[in-house]
């Protein structure tokens, strides 16, 4: 393999590589070799280690200088680590080496309620959602559910104003492990299964929805 001159280099360099067994390849070729070795090796390589790999007579020190220069200011730099040399991503580009990690968050109460209404009542208009929740639906909530690809627009309702309706998506069904939105249990079943809290005490009724609704309203106003 070593006696096969590389097609790319061929033009510039005559067959001098093969001419003499012990003649060092031209510096450009030595540079390529150092480059390839430092790329492929699993540890930083010392000058001696590189010398042991390249053909006899090569001037590794000089080749290293050339390679280092060539990569100056590039996205990858040749750096010296102890006695060894290695390629490293340019320090200013470290932010590119980030990988996304998913942080799971719970949906806000407004979002889960809106989603529940859409799931149970689809196709349902915004006005109907607001009627059920008793507060206006912030567009942020709807946008977020849309962005999660859990709801989408259904057909327009054939009533005055032809309002759009919302329906749940296949992604929603997949996420919640449902085959069909109709598979959701009804309120009576929920109560029978003990999933429903008993009625809250009369006094709490007025307070509880208030603060939450206040928030919701504001969001809509400024959103």
């Amino acid at each position: 393999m070593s006696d096969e001159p590389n097609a790319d280099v061929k033009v510039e360099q005559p067959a001098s590589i093969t001419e003499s067994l012990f003649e060092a390849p031209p510096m450009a070729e030595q540079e390529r070799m150092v480059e390839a070795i430092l790329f492929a090796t699993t540890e930083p390589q010392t000058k001696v280690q590189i010398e042991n790999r390249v053909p006899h007579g090569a001037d590794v020190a000089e080749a290293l200088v050339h390679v280092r220069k060539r990569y100056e200011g590039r996205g990858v730099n040749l750096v010296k680590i102890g006695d060894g040399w290695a390629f490293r991503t340019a320090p200013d580009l470290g932010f590119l080496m980030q990988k996304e990690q998913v942080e799971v968050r719970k949906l806000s109460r407004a979002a889960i309620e809106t989603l529940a209404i859409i799931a149970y009542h689809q196709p349902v208009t915004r006005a109907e959602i607001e009627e059920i929740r008793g507060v206006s639906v912030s567009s942020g909530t709807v946008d977020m559910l849309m962005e999660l690809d859990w709801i989408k627009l259904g057909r327009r309702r054939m009533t005055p104003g032809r309002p759009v309706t919302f329906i749940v998506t296949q992604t929603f069904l997949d996420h919640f492990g449902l085959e069909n939105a109709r598979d959701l249990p009804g309120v009576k079943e929920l109560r029978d299964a003990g999933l429903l809290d008993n009625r809250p005490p009369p006094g709490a009724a007025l307070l509880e929805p208030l603060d939450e609704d206040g928030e919701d309203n504001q969001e809509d106003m400024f959103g």
Partner: protein
Amino acid sequence: MSDDPSAQTQTDDFETTEARIASEAFLIDVEGYEGPLDLLLTLARTQKVDLRKISVLALAKQYLAFVEEAKKLRIELAADYLVMAAWLAFLKSRLLLPADPTEEGPSGEELAAHLAFQLERLEAMRRSAARLMARDQLGRDFFVRGIPEDVSVKKKIEYKASVLDLMQAYARLKTKDSFAPLHFNDRDRVLTMEQALVRMKSLMGHAMDWADLSQFLPEGWTDDPKKRRSATASAFAASLELVKAGVLEIRQTETFAPIQLRKREV
């Protein structure tokens, strides 16, 4: 196919001499073949012609001779070799007998052509396989980065909810119906944010000096405590909005002290 009569006698001669010797030689190594097609391909090569010009008739005879020899030598041949022999015998008769127009199915020539195609294709695939394996290979001739750099972790938020969350949310809504939900029945005693904003904006021009928030309440909203509360809250919220927009300044000297506003100097 090139099975014209003259060519045929030629190939027949050829077959009787060299190919027979060749086929006998192959008998020693019957295990080495990967099935009848492989064997046929090897036999075809003994014709020493381009596979596209091969005489399928000669090939059929070679193969049948091979099977005969094997029987004589009591070499046990796998079933597929015998199936191929039967098929080639049938093909041979088709090729030799004049075509019977009443007969159904493909003609001998069509069958022969397909066999020739199969052999050519198998040979082509073998050549291609060899060329493929002769290519430069990863980890032998060229290499990946030896020290891949670790990628650090960036957080991405994903929202999660279970069916239970969904059902409980819905249940909560449904049970809310049975006790007092929030209804704005007395809207006339509520000053909305929008109303307060409109009012604040119109009055702002006059607030060159610090003025109490209470001075910005609309007329008729200061006496009734409920209305005053609502108006104060809305006016305050509207003020904050205007402060945020950079058109108003706000201060309060101490807790519960009056909240004061003035227009922001530009």
